[in-house]
């Protein structure tokens, strides 16, 4: 076997050994699997009343598990092995240091992923939490978040002189993210200053990535910034950790340590600033939290560019009626007013149903399509009032795949059935047109 092949073979054996030793260690099993189950139960006891239970918290739960494994588990292992001289012996091997460290990190990704999978399965069995909407995206999210946090873990291992120091430094990362970083306490429950601060911490982005993959119909395609933030923060920490990596105990802080620590912290600051400057620090409410959790910042972040004109082919909208509409339009108004799906207990879903009527008129090219849309707008304003309607419309825009839509309404003369996707697309357009008017951003 050639030298390079031998080296790869050796590194793979080392990776397998890391996995095996981890599974043989009672302590590692307790911290790696039992503690995550404890966190799941803790969250379950608080959020089990929601329907579905824990659906909006899975991003937080998985993030805590990954944080624990990456910021405590791996550095504790690395530092304890370093203290005992194991890494000093490794250093005599004819392979680069990075390969051995990568083996430890890869093993940790697998272990943490297994713990995350266990949590998902237990949540499903014990609390009937739905399984991820995008299982592959969620799995990929776990790997991405874990890799990023392992970068932080590597830096913790490099900075800590001994195992107690790992605990101290790890807590410095863990606690702020849990308390004010949107990981333990939902962002919506935090004061404005804490929400702003959370933008400077990777935990927030981890929750966002995982929650989008887990429960948002849009999936992680909307998590570009969060993924970028995790990549930048993780990469800077990993580079700093690699540069400061210690094979043996005994070296203390030198000037280079501060410089590389500065590089790692700069990534946090730069990410937070970028998020702040691009208006990304608005709170993403969990989908099942409903329109009531939509914040003003979220509403302010919605754009109205590139909407079709009101008299164009798509999403027509008649001008406001001068007086009481009579004739066929008056009949349509009466039928819409009495239409049962528009009077459900859930105001958000009822609004989505009414918007479906506007969408069906549009896609079926009904001769009164513009008037139907105007009637729906008037009806919604009349029922909900402008303030509540703003939140409802924003909720529908932010979570276009939530709830259900009506794809055919024969009782309203709109009997032709259309694909759900096209109905949802038109609902989104009308919601933006209506919200723009309510906010004064579109002139009626």
């Amino acid at each position, binding site marked *: *076997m*050639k*030298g390079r092949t*031998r*080296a790869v*073979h*050796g*590194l793979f*054996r*080392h990776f397998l*050994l890391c996995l095996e*030793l981890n599974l*043989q*260690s009672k302590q590692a099993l307790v911290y790696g699997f039992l503690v995550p189950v404890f966190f799941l139960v803790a969250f379950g006891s608080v959020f089990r009343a929601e329907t579905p239970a824990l659906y909006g918290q899975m991003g937080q739960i998985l993030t805590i598990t990954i944080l624990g494994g990456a910021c405590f588990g791996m550095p504790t292992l690395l530092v304890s*092995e370093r203290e*005992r*001289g*194991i890494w*000093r*012996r490794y*250093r*005599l*091997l*004819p*392979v*680069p240091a990075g390969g051995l460290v990568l083996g430890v990190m890869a093993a940790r990704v697998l272990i943490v992923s297994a713990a995350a999978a266990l949590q998902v399965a237990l949540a499903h069995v014990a609390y009937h939490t739905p399984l991820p909407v995008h299982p592959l995206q969620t799995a990929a999210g776990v790997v991405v978040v874990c890799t990023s946090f392992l970068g932080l873990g590597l830096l913790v291992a490099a900075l800590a002189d001994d195992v107690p120091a790992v605990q101290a430094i790890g807590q410095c990362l863990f606690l702020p993210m849990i308390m004010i970083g949107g990981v333990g306490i939902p962002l919506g429950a935090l004061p404005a200053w804490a929400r702003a601060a959370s933008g400077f911490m990777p935990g927030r982005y981890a929750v966002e990535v995982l929650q989008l993959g887990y429960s948002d119909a849009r999936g992680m395609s909307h998590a570009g910034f969060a993924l970028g933030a995790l990549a930048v923060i993780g990469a800077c920490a990993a580079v700093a950790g690699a540069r400061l990596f210690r*094979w*043996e105990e005994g070296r203390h802080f030198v000037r280079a340590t501060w410089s590389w620590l500065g590089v790692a912290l700069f990534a946090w600051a730069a990410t937070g600033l970028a998020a702040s400057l691009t208006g990304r620090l608005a709170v993403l409410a969990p989908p099942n939290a409903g329109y009531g959790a939509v914040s003003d910042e979220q509403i302010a972040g919605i754009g109205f560019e590139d909407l079709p004109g009101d008299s164009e082919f798509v999403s027509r909208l008649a001008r406001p009626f001068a007086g009481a509409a009579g004739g066929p339009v008056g009949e349509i108004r009466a039928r819409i007013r009495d239409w049962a799906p528009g009077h459900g207990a859930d105001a958000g879903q009822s609004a989505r149903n009414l918007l479906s009527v506007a969408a069906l008129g549009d896609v079926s090219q009904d001769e009164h399509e513009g008037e139907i849309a105007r009637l729906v707008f008037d009806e919604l304003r009349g029922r909900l009032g402008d303030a509540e309607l703003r939140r409802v419309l924003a909720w529908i825009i932010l979570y276009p795949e939530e709830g259900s839509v009506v794809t055919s309404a024969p009782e309203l003369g709109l009997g032709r059935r259309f694909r759900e996707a096209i109905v949802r697309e038109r609902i989104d357009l009308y919601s933006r047109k209506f919200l723009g008017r309510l906010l004064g951003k579109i002139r009626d």
Partner: protein
Amino acid sequence: MPAPMPVSVRVRDLARRYGRVEALRGVTFEVAPGEIFGLLGPNGAGKTTALECILGLRRPDSGEIEIAGIDALARPGEARQVCGAQLQAAALQDRITPRRALSLFASFYREPAEVGGLIERFGLAEKADEAFERLSEGQRQRLFLALAFVNNPGLVVLDEPTAGLDPRSRRELHRFIQETGRSGRTVLLSTHDLGEAELLCDRIGILDHGRIVAAGRPSELIRASGTAPAVEVRTVRPPNRARMESLPGVTACTGEGERWRLGTGDVNATLFGLARLLESEGNEILGLEVVKPTLEDVFLELTGRPWAAPEEGER
């Protein structure tokens, strides 16, 4: 295990500082292929630092290191392929077994030794599948020695190999090192034990304050030293001092009462003269010993300081 190609080591002007402390100050020495070379020195002389630089554990501030013709500072990975080492302070994971450890470490090398053979050779057969945490100190020591041979190395580096061992294990290890030398491998070891160095090493380099103060065969170094051998005698009655001082070969006479030490340039002549003197005095010999100069005397002569017995774990 097939005998590997013996490997030469060349170290030139090695320097290493720790803050204000100069651990190595231009250390230069060479080890010929197949030779057992010992770095000998008291506490803090720089032995371990020198070995760590050679093994690539520590980067020297300046200097050159060549192992088997390979520039070890520029190509440490290549140098490590031909080099096996046992370190003073090392450990393995608690739950790893000797078989797993040997198998893992062997998997990194181009020409690994056969793991089963290593287990047999180092007397680990009964404990091959036992967790590291359950091995005794001696078994651990043997495992680390086995790990040093896992790549069938041409050069074996041993840092204070007998430190902390009981006398029996020490004797076993001495025998093993001698066998290793006879198998054609080059051995580079550090020790603070003068007797060990004299017993095991073909050549030694005496390190003091980060500098090699003398290098050569132990017997040559002793012969070249200015310290004379001595005859130590214990008698029934005090002998006549003046007559002893005038014995053939005697250069110095110290002692009192019945115990005397006679420095001499001619041991045979002094012994013969001493026997005749005591017989003529009607005196009787209770004890007689010829004391040859040792490496301790060489060290004293070279540094002006007596050899201090080092404590365990000195670096």
